[in-house]
């Protein structure tokens, strides 16, 4: 009987956690999609804000970090872009698209140097 209760409890907990996670991912995905729409219209600052929100809502969402990195790159914030790319790669090491974006970013970033003043 106790075993049965434990099993029921575990099942309930699993369902609850899964539903909550799905909710979180769904909220984050909404932000990501909105960000993509505005980025396609050239509103990169708004897109950056949306993807930042998505990454806060769901810190395990690699796509949000990938897009955030691209927005940072577009805004010339290369240190932040690198950080976000690294996070995205860490979350989804097997994602070829994220790796491809990161490689292209590194190619540009390597050309930059520290500013020198007279």
């Amino acid at each position: 009987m106790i075993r049965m209760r434990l099993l029921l409890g575990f099942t309930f907990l699993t369902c609850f956690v899964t539903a909550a996670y799905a909710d979180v991912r769904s909220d984050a995905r909404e932000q990501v999609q909105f960000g993509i729409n505005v980025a396609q219209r050239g509103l990169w600052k708004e897109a950056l804000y949306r993807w930042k929100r998505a990454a806060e809502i769901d810190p395990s969402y690699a796509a949000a970090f990938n897009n955030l990195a691209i927005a940072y790159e577009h805004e010339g914030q290369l240190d932040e872009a690198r950080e976000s790319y690294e996070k995205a790669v860490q979350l989804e090491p097997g994602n070829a698209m994220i790796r491809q974006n990161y490689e292209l970013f590194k190619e540009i970033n390597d050309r930059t140097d520290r500013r020198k003043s007279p």
Partner: protein
Amino acid sequence: MTALTAGRALNFAALAALAVAGCSSLVEIPIETPIQAKLDISAFSRVLVAGFVAGGSDAVDANLETVRLLRSQLRSKSSLRVIDADPMPLLELAKEEAPASVPAPEPAPTPASAPEQAGTPDTSEIKNEKDLESYEHLFANVDFWKRIGEEFQNPLIVTGTVLFAPQQRSQFVQREQEVYDAFGRRSVVPVRTFMERKGFILAQKFIFIDGRSGATITSEQFREERLYNQNQNTPALSSYFELMDAVVPKFLNILSTQKVRGTRVLLE
């Protein structure tokens, strides 16, 4: 840029593969990444491209051509006002100011048939980058550059060395060859061939000098090479401009923010 193009091609290939697999949550988007200028030039409103110690080939006056090209690029792609002045004959000036401890290299013997050109600097003694090093003492002469700075009201001074020299080398080249199978069907296959190639190298050292103090702010070196097939007769001047095409964006990025165009893939 070639690498970027290759990267883009890879990108398209990966996109196509994923699209075929039925995945529609990818959006390719063009971006422009601003690359900050390497040098903070906020203290200057004017720039003087003074001239270069140049050599390597008599076919192109590398000093004159480099000054002309950089000035025109700076006029259209930077916020600095470009000072128009005759390019300085720095090779001659460097020879005059050569310290006793560092003698300028001995001039190479010139063929008797070669006509003397009045007003054209004799660059025949400069054959490689090492030869140019003997003239670099001029750039460390703070008093000299301070005087130039005073003359032109304290601008940012751009100077340095330019080596534009012929180059010849044997290397593997990939070319396409027609082949016919047993049924007479034609196809084209890539073939690697070892062949003699000739062309030019362009090795430049840009030195940025503070016209107020005469001191060097920074220097940057670039080296480019273009080799052509032996039967391809490319004029030296056109090769020079081809090589400068690769150098100019890097030069401009030292002084002004440049935007690099590319594409990235957004994910859902």
